[in-house]
């Protein structure tokens, strides 16, 4: 064999080093207890009250959107349900999740609008509204670029008057039409200069050319070569077509600006740098990662069909499971694990020690990953999640069983242990990878398609499969190879688990090592 000499010791060391790094990261995060789910530690219960008399289907739609929002990023495992036909109740694990109220309640009506009048920019937009405005009412349906561009050239007198009457900042109750993408909009943008001085720019905007429902995708990302975060949005075909017309018209006209408006307030007033902008664009601003992610999530999951009272009721709720359940579950899991270990020791004898060590290492790695993911991805451990991890013990042990049975089979064919370990590994490895791919697929799809508890369970399942593979490849296999050098194992002693008696063969192996 021309391969470099296999050094199991090095692999072992590298794996243990990796484990050390994992726990180093956990120590940096400084949290040694995993975040527990709603059922185990309670959480925050947010009650939203609908304004007016929404229909049952509207409420249910709102419920779904809110469900997507709170469960859309990370693994929050929130429960969302409707109460008494007018409240939407959101239960989120963790007592201090009031920060999610905003995400839950946000309307997130996005509109890209063309600027008709403005006191900020020079040129046509600044002068257009000094006159009385057009008398003829041109209808401006949302999503029609041609009509919006025409309206911009000749805004109606009614709206010019509104624009001229408004002073920035607009105080008090915002007018109703702020939320209507089919109507023009008078609005102010707050501009903060480097000294912290606030100034305002006043705009008269056309009806929205592109709305939130035209979005295909919204994703938080970072600008290349910059620290600022932005939200990249991709438009659907129809929206992209309309936006393409606007970008062509505005770019031809001295790279004019347009406005991206969220819930009636301009969040960005970019100028058109290219005439062929259509499908992909982005919203920038002084955003951090959290803000950008939040905005992207809100945009992606659309506007709520129901308006909710601004006053939300947030309460702290206790765990929904009795305290003894977790203890009972853990005790049961412990007993089960103990029995599994006992079985492995009795059946595999010396090799059983390898099983115990591998299971222990897998448990430690899993715990570390759970801690790390609680901190970074909002992963919470629910009772089903814990059960999932305990179940994974069986599947983890199976990888050793496949491997050991292969070694035995190879030895039954007359190979010595040291040879059998290597040739058995080649075959066991293939089987194990194929089988693990199936497990990973199921975990991945549970995670992608499900919400709430199932999502978390899929996550736990996938996590344990990956850890299992890592332990098998980088710990169990090198350990067995390494142990195969020792007489206790390759000598065929009674306690090694590989004696001729345990194998059930009486065949004396070639080479005389029996």
């Amino acid at each position, binding site marked *: 064999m021309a391969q470099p000499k296999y050094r199991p010791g090095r692999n072992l060391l590298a794996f243990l080093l990796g484990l050390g790094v994992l726990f180093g990261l956990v120590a940096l995060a400084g949290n040694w207890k995993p975040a527990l789910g709603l059922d185990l530690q309670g959480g925050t219960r947010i009650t939203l009250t609908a304004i007016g008399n929404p229909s049952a289907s509207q409420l249910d739609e709102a*419920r779904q959107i809110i469900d997507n929002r709170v469960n859309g990023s990370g693994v929050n495992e929130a429960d969302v349900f409707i109460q008494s036909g007018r409240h939407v109740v959101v239960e989120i694990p963790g007592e201090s999740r009031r920060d999610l109220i905003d995400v839950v309640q946000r309307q997130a009506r996005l509109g890209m609008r063309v600027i008709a009048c403005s006191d900020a920019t020079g040129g046509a937009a600044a002068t257009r509204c000094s006159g009385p405005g057009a008398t003829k009412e041109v209808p401006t349906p949302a999503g029609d670029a041609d009509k919006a561009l025409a309206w911009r050239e000749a805004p109606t007198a009614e709206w010019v008057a509104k624009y001229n009457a408004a002073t920035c900042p607009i105080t008090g109750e915002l007018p109703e039409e702020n939320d209507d993408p089919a109507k023009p909009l008078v609005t102010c943008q707050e501009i903060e200069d480097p000294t912290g001085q606030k100034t305002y720019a006043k705009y008269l905007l056309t009806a929205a050319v592109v709305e939130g429902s035209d979005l295909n995708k919204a994703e938080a990302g970072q600008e290349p070569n910059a620290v600022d975060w932005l939200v990249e949005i991709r438009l659907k075909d129809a929206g992209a077509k309309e936006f393409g017309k606007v970008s062509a018209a505005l770019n031809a006209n001295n790279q004019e600006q347009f406005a991206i408006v969220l819930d009636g307030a301009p969040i960005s007033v970019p100028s058109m740098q290219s005439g062929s902008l259509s499908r992909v664009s982005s919203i920038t601003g002084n955003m951090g990662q959290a803000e950008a992610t939040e905005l992207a999530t809100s945009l992606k999951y659309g506007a709520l069909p129901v308006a909710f009272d601004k006053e939300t009721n947030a309460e702290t*709720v206790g765990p929904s499971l009795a305290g003894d359940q977790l203890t*009972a579950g853990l005790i049961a899991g412990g007993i089960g694990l103990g*029995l599994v270990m006992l079985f492995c020791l009795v059946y595999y004898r010396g090799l059983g020690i390898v099983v115990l060590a591998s299971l222990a290492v897998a448990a430690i790695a899993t715990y570390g990953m759970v801690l790390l993911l609680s901190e970074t991805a909002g992963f919470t451990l629910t009772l089903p999640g814990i059960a999932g991890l305990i179940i994974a013990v069986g599947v983890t042990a*199976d990888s050793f069983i496949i491997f050991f049975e292969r070694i035995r089979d190879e030895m039954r064919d007359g190979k010595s242990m040291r040879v059998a370990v290597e040739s058995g590994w080649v075959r066991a490895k293939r089987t194990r990878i194929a089988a693990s*791919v199936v497990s990973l697929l199921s975990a991945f799809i549970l995670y992608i398609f499900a919400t709430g508890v*199932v999502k978390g*369970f*899929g996550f736990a399942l996938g996590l344990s499969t990956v850890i299992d593979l890592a332990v098998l490849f980088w710990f169990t296999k090198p350990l067995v190879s390494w142990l195969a050098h020792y007489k206790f194992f390759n000598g065929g002693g009674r306690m090694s688990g590989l004696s001729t008696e345990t194998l059930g063969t009486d065949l004396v192996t070639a080479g005389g090592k029996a």
Partner: protein
Amino acid sequence: MGKFSRIGNDLYNGKRSIDFVGRRTLWYVITGLIVGVALLSVIVKPLHFGIEFTGGTEYRISDLSSAQASQSSADEVRAAVADTGFPEAASPTVTTVNNDALLVQIENLSTEESKTVQEAILAALGDDQLQVSQSDVSASWGQEVAQRAGLGVLVFLIIVVLFIWSYFREWKMSVAAIVALIHDIVITIGVYAASGFPVTPAAVTGLLAILGFSLYDTVVVFDKIRENTAEMSKTRLSYADATNLAVNQTLVRSVNTGIVALIPLGAILFVSAAMLGSSSLKDLALSQFVGMAAGVFSSVFVAPRVLVHMKSGETAVIQADRRAKARARNRAADPYAAVVPEYRENMPVYDEKSGRPEGRR
């Protein structure tokens, strides 16, 4: 142990073998009966869906003292509500709110029954003057969740079928694996219906996890089948015999994996059923326990059987069968032709009387 491992060796070299594949009708009838009983129990005793699917009633008991709104009194209320004996109230969710209120959620009850439950709650709190407000709650697991889960399962099945097909280069293995999977799922649902455990998100989770495990287990067995049948012309075994040998050779693994996977589940199931009243732990453990047991069973009895059945029409398989038969016939005709031993160096010499190797040991 020695005796058991002797069986392991015999199973491996084919000296002893259990005929999993041979008796087609017998195994089909047995599995058909089990699946039939499972289906029947679903029809006779439909699944009992929990509050997450059907919606229900929420009772809010406000203005409590901090002792009344504690975790321990929540536990007492939970027990008291479960003890009222209505199946709809068998698994209540009881949580504390802000240290001054309790929330109790159960499935919908008649007015009369609802009154009994409220009285039980107040009795457990030791104060019958408390205010109980009642409101409806919707299902948190609506149609959308079901649709998405359904879509997920569909996507998963398609991907897995393609994966097994590309890995084994044999679409019939995909089909056999899916048949075994359906077998496992039907049995699990049947046990759920028969036991009357409520179908909760935890139970559904368990069922979904079975999808992965069932196929995982089948893939392991199929891998050995492929290995044994890859060079059929060399081994001179018929396809059915080679498959049967593979199943026997992996039997020790199947049994061991079954034991190792079922022990922790059994412990959880036992503890949660015996010590705790209702719990999502119990629901999850039951679906997993039954599903895993069925998964091991089907990977031994169902999947290889179906595979052999499907393959029996292929030319290569028919030819191999013919060769194997001819070989057996020749052996019967000329008993000496079959026993031409292959000599190797260091081959042990067997003592004729004891059957044990001479010399060493």
